């Protein structure tokens, strides 16, 4: 069976009323789950998982796929509307998404997201279908050294994601990395910086930190300056859809984001988050409208949203072709398969082509469902902004507290939420980039883990980390991106100083 036949075969299996219903229920449930802060893709899939045990295998897997895609989308919706990322993969979307909302362009931002997710899903599924056997092995090229390069180099590059001065990016990044060291140390089980608080043993959970830094701090800012909040008087269809120019500007970032997402999806780790940051950083580097990023640019929404969805689909490759779940959600999917008596692994495609292809087709169907479900809902979401501030702000506060508490039923997380809210307010007043702090918190533990693994492997020999072409390559790119900009500026200033006008024209061209 060639890939095209396979996909058609899968679609044939999936196009039954039962499975379409399962996809719809999954996508709807996922969107609702994603909109609530604190409940992201993992929590959503975990909630649904026990239900799938009673369903036929394909229906269960499709439902989880729907929940996954839906909650990714739902999480970004709150990023855009309220500057409150529901999960880490939606953090960068908040940067430009919320600025668009403040300019009254919430509807277009959500439409761009919905269509972008769909397009990224489509591109990634095509890549999965055609390239699965070839790229499956990519994971085997990566050992601890390469992962350290990817996460460590990535951290240095991505910390500058929100632009601004060097310090405004790296200071919050260091704070984030420090927060990430709290809790049980992964290798030896030592309690680090928990100060006797049992609840801190699991470390800082991302949700209260992100929701506090963004959502709660935003409420403080609005309290200080009521004019800051957007209040939409009426929701006209014309204002919900992107303008022709906005569509045009979205295409290239969608494409770039999809490819970046797909590539990151092939690797373990926080691929959706990492890819959304990387996509934003890419837009900063290559987009024609890079100057507008951070001020409500379509590119800043289109790229990251395409990337996190591309990563979601890309992660199917290692799951299906190797039986290795590279994310918590896919670990749950794997669990669903195992309970159903399906053993994923290198032989799945030969032994159970029906499962393999219907799962791929189901990701596709879930994406279509999501588009059908969410485009009409854009108006509903935007209408949320019509709620008077005096009701909306307390409402957001309540939802944020419930969200923080419900991730692991710990009152400590509510305190974390409030403290992070205050910290977020302070950092924003001082013009620090909050996204860098999230990157630090997400990547810090991975960097430590890969460093430790590598040192175990090489018995303490640091040269191991620069022993492969891939890791040298990644580190070089990171250093180039980090130092390239400042050095180029320096060089340019010197040249400009010597023979001013001629060169200046060239550079600006």
């Amino acid at each position, binding site marked *: 069976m060639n890939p095209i036949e396979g996909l058609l075969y899968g679609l044939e299996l999936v196009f039954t009323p*039962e499975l379409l219903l399962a996809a719809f229920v999954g996508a709807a449930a996922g969107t609702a789950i994603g909109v609530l802060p604190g409940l992201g893709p993992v929590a959503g899939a975990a909630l649904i998982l026990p239900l799938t045990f009673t369903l036929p295998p394909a229906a269960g897997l499709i439902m989880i796929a729907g929940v996954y895609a839906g909650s990714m989308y739902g999480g970004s919706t709150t990023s855009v509307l309220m500057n409150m990322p529901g999960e880490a993969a939606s953090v960068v979307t908040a940067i430009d998404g919320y600025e668009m909302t403040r300019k009254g362009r919430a509807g277009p931002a959500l439409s761009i997201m919905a269509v972008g997710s769909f397009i990224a899903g489509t591109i990634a599924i095509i890549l999965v279908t055609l390239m699965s056997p070839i790229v499956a092995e990519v994971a085997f090229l990566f050992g*601890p050294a390469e992962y350290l390069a990817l996460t460590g180099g990535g951290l240095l590059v991505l910390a500058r994601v929100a632009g601004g001065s060097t310090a405004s990016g790296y200071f919050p990044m260091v704070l984030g990395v420090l927060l990430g060291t709290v809790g049980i140390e992964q290798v030896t*089980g030592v309690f680090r910086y928990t100060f006797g608080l049992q609840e801190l043993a699991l470390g800082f959970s991302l949700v209260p930190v992100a929701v506090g830094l963004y959502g709660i701090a935003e409420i403080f800012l609005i309290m200080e300056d009521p004019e800051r909040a957007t209040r939409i008087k009426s929701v006209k269809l014309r204002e919900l859809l992107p303008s022709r120019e906005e569509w045009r500007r979205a295409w290239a970032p969608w494409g770039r984001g999809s490819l970046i997402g797909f590539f990151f999806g092939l690797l373990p780790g926080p691929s959706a988050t990492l890819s959304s940051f990387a996509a934003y950083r890419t837009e900063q580097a290559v987009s024609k409208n890079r100057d507008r990023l951070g001020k409500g640019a379509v590119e800043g929404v289109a790229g990251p949203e395409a990337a996190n969805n591309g990563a979601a689909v890309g992660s199917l490759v290692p799951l299906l072709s190797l039986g*290795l779940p*590279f994310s918590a959600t896919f670990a749950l999917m794997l669990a669903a398969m195992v309970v159903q008596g399906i053993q994923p692994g*290198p032989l799945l495609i030969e032994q159970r082509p029906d499962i393999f292809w219907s799962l791929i087709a189901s990701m596709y169907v879930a994406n279509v469902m999501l588009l059908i479900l969410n485009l009409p809902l854009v108006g509903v979401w935007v209408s949320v902004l019509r709620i008077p501030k005096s009701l909306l702000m307390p409402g957001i506060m309540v939802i944020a507290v419930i969200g923080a508490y419900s991730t692991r039923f710990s009152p400590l997380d509510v305190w974390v939420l409030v403290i992070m809210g205050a910290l977020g307010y302070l950092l924003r007043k001082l013009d620090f980039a909050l996204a860098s702090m999230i990157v630090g918190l997400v990547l810090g533990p991975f960097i430590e883990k890969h460093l430790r693994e590598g040192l175990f*492997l090489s018995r303490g020999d640091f040269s191991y980390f620069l022993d492969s072409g891939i890791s040298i390559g990644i580190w070089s790119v990171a250093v180039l991106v980090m130092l390239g900009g400042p050095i180029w500026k320096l060089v340019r200033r010197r040249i400009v100083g010597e023979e001013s006008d001629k060169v200046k024209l060239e550079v600006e061209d």
Partner: protein
Amino acid sequence: MKKHTLRGALAAASALALVACGGDAGTDDTDVAAAGGDEARWQPERPITYIIPYGTGGSTDPIGRQFASQLEEELGVEVVVENREGGAATIGTTGIVTAAPDCYTIGLSNDTALANQPLLNPDLPFQTTDDYTSLVKLADIPVVLAVDADAPWQTLEEFFAYVEENPNEVGYATSGVGGTPDTNAKLLEIRSGLELNRVPFSGGGGEALTAVVAGEVESIGTYYPSMQGFVDSGDLRPLGVFYNEEYEPVPDLPLIPEIYEGAAKPSAYYTIAPANLPEECRDTLVEVSREIVESGEFRAFAEENGYVVDPIQLEELAAEIDEYRPIFEELEGSDA
């Protein structure tokens, strides 16, 4: 099939509703099925909570859920599975042990939580086997030692011979320090004097497997079901098993403790309850748990997932947990 999907859809919707209002799952779910069994049996009047000290979808979750769903059938009341993960299963186990001793809260635990963790943390409320009721042992699962298919060693003897001549050179990938695969290797080192370079891959999710298949590390210790796909595809070669008797999924595999005595410490899963249960419900739970583990359905589940069923109960089970303690003490004390 349609019925199933619809039921799932409804259940999903209601689950969402519950989540949305932050409510307590199952509070208004009172459709208790008709009672079955003989009359001397205790008949629960409300749902029973079954705590699983690991996350939903983890490798340990399914065996707990299998037991819980059969318990539901046997007792005719709803059995609500609650996943309370974290703290190397001590958080969930604490939840079981400190619950009211009324037979309405029981749950899953394992040998490391019950025999090892109390040594590390004297504050845990389960220091000895008297602190809980050892209802039934569900199963053992042994660790299998495998090497990358491209590695030169064809047999266990060749592998051990090489390790003996080259101490601390051959890498052995595990799911983390203190996990059962790591514990088995450490036990092997103590018993044999061999030295492996144990590499803990803390992330789970098959990272240790990836490292071995990629040739990054030479050998691995893990449970058979997770490596089976790579064994079938010819990427991994199992060499031996850390188990005292023939391991059914791979019957011809050499037993490592036959070469180095005592080098075997399988993972073991138990259903436990708080101590001092009322006699009537305790007797029923003891009886029902044995019936479940001995049932054809449970055995079929175990066989498919690489478990070895071993339905010992009460004193016999407590004795097994007590026997594991000195082994863990020895492991803690050694600096291998």
